[in-house]
């Protein structure tokens, strides 16, 4: 085998190797571009979390209304018990009812305090999840852009003589 034949086959092999590398780079670039569609996924999650947080706000308003009702019910039951005491023996039955209402009012008040704590916990965890998605989305999109930039630079360096 003469030298010119060997040089020729080596050149063909190098050319084939470079073409394969360029194909792989092009494939990587397509994958990176495809990953950029994650932006739409993040936007969807973002909208879902905004909906969840709107529901939270509505629940908070209902929870505050429930707390207010519980306070008023308690006051009402105390006043009813006082009125029953003033009325004496003739209102003994009414006093029993007033006492039962008072017990119920305490129970509702305690329940509303528990619900309020759960709502706050829910508000905090939903908000931090929302923010995690927001911040995570930014960092993933930045990492994809950085990957795209590296692919472009590699592609340019391969094309330059």
């Amino acid at each position: 085998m003469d030298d010119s034949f060997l040089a020729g086959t080596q050149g063909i092999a190098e050319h084939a190797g470079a073409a394969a590398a360029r194909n792989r780079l092009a494939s990587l670039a397509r994958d990176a571009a495809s990953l950029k569609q994650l932006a739409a996924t993040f936007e969807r999650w973002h909208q879902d979390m905004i909906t969840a947080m709107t529901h939270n706000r509505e629940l908070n308003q209902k929870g505050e209304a429930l707390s207010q009702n519980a306070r008023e019910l308690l006051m009402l039951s105390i006043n009813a018990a006082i009125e029953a005491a003033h009325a004496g023996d003739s209102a003994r039955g009414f006093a029993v009812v007033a006492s039962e209402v008072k017990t119920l009012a305490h129970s509702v008040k305690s329940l509303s305090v528990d619900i309020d704590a759960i709502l706050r916990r829910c508000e905090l965890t939903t908000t931090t999840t929302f923010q995690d998605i927001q911040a995570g989305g930014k960092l993933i999109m930045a990492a994809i852009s950085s990957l795209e930039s590296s692919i472009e630079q590699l592609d340019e360096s391969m094309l330059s003589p």
Partner: protein
Amino acid sequence: MSHISRQSQDHLALAFQRAARSTLTFDAADDCAIEPSVVGAEHGLCGEHLLVITIASFVFRLTVLFDILADAATQSYYVRGDAQRPLVDAFADAANLCCGALNRELSRSFPHLGMSIPYLLRGQCTAQVRALNPQYLACFAITINREVRVRGTLCLSCSAPIEVGACADDDCESETGVLELL
């Protein structure tokens, strides 16, 4: 097992304190005292407003919670003469700068970081911070010019071990406060 070493906790706490000193005050001459505080709204300051910002990496989430009081001193300090501007709006700018500075410091250890925008919650939500399952939780009482009081809470959750490097400048202060490890 905790995913963050004691040294990393100290570095993180120091980075926050430095960011708070440089961004929550407007003038270099302002006096800014930062003391460790007890976590949870049931102790110390429970602000009317709670501003929340999250910094995320692939393996951790750091949520920073700022409690502020809507009192005259806080209003006057942050609103700066613009009576029309809501306090939370003015403070959100400062809190955003603070977390931006912390984010920059952390990016020396973690090249990929993202930061959320601030979000306003009811002050009482601070009491529920343990629901976020933090591996590191620390709280700092920040007092500016002896009258403006802000409380900053750091709540870190990690899915893998992390190492937070020492702060950028050589003249780092040695104070790190008393930290709570969960």
